[in-house]
């Protein structure tokens, strides 16, 4: 999948370069003068949406686009409010996160399209709107959380060597409707494999301040010493597994640990053997490809792209190459 995405990015770049050369015009950026409003979805400085933002910012710089960034604190109401603000500014295009769903976005996207404002979405699909407006550039760049959760769980099962009857622990955010599909998929996959699975919901405090997760893991592992596999549906908590396991008296590679999203701290934890497998959505691509797609649609009328960026798995063998990129907010 990573190869497909890389090739696609390369293809888009070559296409942009080639079209300029073929027309014999000076190589001016294709998106010059275009105004795009981009909802990064999360808060200012959020670890995940900052990487999305970095991709969008780079694409805007490469293509000469005037990019305006919006932040929604992962709140669907804020995403709708931001869309209305963007509509009022009459840009050439708007990139949304699909979390509010088709029904919430439908009247607004209809209004945007009627006003010749292009719209596309990232992260979470809006299938009905995509079907309706694909020919006018509405696409989806992202991945299905369920597929992502299932993939990580299956890989972890295959690589860790756990067997039927073994105990596993999943720490996730089921309370979040869309995001929670990832944790649910992991639970389902592990349970279908015959494992005894304990699930714990991440509290809002631990969600924001990972330091408070230490007693949680110590407490759990003290009372469930037979746990052989831990899957964590949270990037920041994955990055702190080294601290948590050390506090619980568990050494590297004693428990197989899988999680999501790369960060410099996660890279260190992989290198030291406290985290074994990390799945990433490659959020940089969400930003880069969505902006690129809007520019292509505006310039040449291309239809919306539907690209799955999930499936990127990082382990000890590949972390050396990826870690410097994580530090720069690209992976």
């Amino acid at each position, binding site marked *: 999948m990573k190869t497909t995405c890389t090739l696609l990015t390369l293809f888009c770049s070559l296409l942009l370069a080639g079209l300029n050369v073929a027309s014999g015009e000076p190589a001016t950026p294709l998106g010059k003068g275009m105004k795009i409003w981009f909802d990064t979805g999360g808060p200012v*400085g959020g670890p995940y949406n900052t990487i999305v933002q970095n991709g969008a910012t780079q694409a805007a710089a490469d293509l000469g686009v005037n990019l305006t960034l919006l932040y929604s604190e992962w709140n669907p109401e804020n995403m709708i409010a931001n869309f209305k603000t963007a509509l009022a500014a009459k840009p050439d295009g708007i990139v949304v996160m699909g979390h509010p769903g088709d029904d919430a976005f439908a009247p607004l996207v209809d209004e945007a399209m009627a006003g010749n404002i292009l719209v596309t979405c990232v992260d979470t699909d809006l299938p009905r709107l995509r079907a309706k407006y694909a020919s006018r550039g509405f696409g989806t760049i992202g991945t299905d959380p369920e597929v992502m959760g299932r993939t990580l769980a299956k890989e972890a099962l295959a690589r860790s060597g756990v067997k039927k009857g073994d105990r596993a622990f999943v720490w996730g955010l089921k309370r979040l409707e869309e995001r929670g599909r990832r944790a649910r998929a992991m639970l389902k996959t592990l349970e279908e494999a015959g494992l005894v699975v304990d699930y714990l919901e991440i509290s809002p405090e631990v969600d924001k301040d*990972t330091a408070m997760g230490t*007693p949680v893991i110590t407490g759990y592992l003290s009372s469930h010493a037979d746990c052989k596999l831990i899957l964590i549906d949270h990037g920041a908590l994955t990055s*702190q597994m080294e601290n948590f396991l050390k506090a*619980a008296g568990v050494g590297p590679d004693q428990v197989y640990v899988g999680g999501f999203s790369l960060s410099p701290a996660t890279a260190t934890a992989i290198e030291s053997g406290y985290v074994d497998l990390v799945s990433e959505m490659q959020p940089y691509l969400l930003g880069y490809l969505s902006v690129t797609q809007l520019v292509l649609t505006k310039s040449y009328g291309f239809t919306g792209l539907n690209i799955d960026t999930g499936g990127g798995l990082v382990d000890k063998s590949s972390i050396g190459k990826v870690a410097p990129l994580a530090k720069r907010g690209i992976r």
Partner: protein
Amino acid sequence: MAFLHRYRLQLGITALLAMLLALFALLSPQTFLGGRIYISFLSTIPFIAILALGLTFLVIAGELDMSFPSLMAMAGLLFAEIYLRTASPWLGFVAALAAGGIGGLLNGLLVVKVGVPSIIATIGTQFFWRGLSALLASGLARNIASIRGTDFHQLMVGRVLGIPAQALWFLALAILLALLLNRHVFGERVLFTGDNLRAARLNGVDTDRVRLWLFTMMGLLSAFVAVLVCLEMGNWWPTQGEGYLLLVFAAIFIGGTSVFGGRGTLYGTCIGAIIIGIIEAGIISAGFSGFWTRLVHGLIIVVSVSIYATIFRTGRS
């Protein structure tokens, strides 16, 4: 009998903690009768407790500070960034404390000199510091894992005979601040300021100065905790501090400090912080779902503040 009556609040909160520990030990003996979970608590509860100590002073003085989580983020970022650039944790530590002190003083000036109510002023500065740290960090975390193994790391969060050093820092600060509140004229002034601001002024207490000191102290303690958290986790992250806001207030009010000012105990705050810090691990070790955590937090807060309201006949009339 007079002793029991005088210290009924402290005895009550201690009994509540003992009951919780007994309950958790009963439900999960393999966890709560072993030592590891307590070492784990000693590595995380000091963060909540130190913040709560500083905030207790402010609440006693009739003020609030909502900005300390953001000030933590700012101070933590300065510490991590300076360490990464200079390899000197001491320089980063001094810069972090300076940022905390200045941030706290700014809060104090807004409240005391400009006259903005503290809850409003500190909500404003909360946004400011969070925004500034996000801007300076470009939203990216800072990995300072290389600081482990340095003398500074050992001094601040290393293990002393197996005990996390942050717990010893907390103990030292708690004793120092308790002496300040209960055995020093400054503590009297704080209590008087919170009890009746106008009366305190008429009696010659420089209430402006008292409050400026308290806000500055809260800023310094926030920065101190931010450095400890960065060291313990080997990392700075953009949302650092955000998770502490409600827990710190909960610890203070469970501990029996009056929201109306003029009364409070640091001992109660410390026990409140311990209660808040052990609940989640206790619930999970006992095999209950994490969904219970907030419910139990809420229950303990409501029951304890209701008992205090009944005992002390507080409330607005």
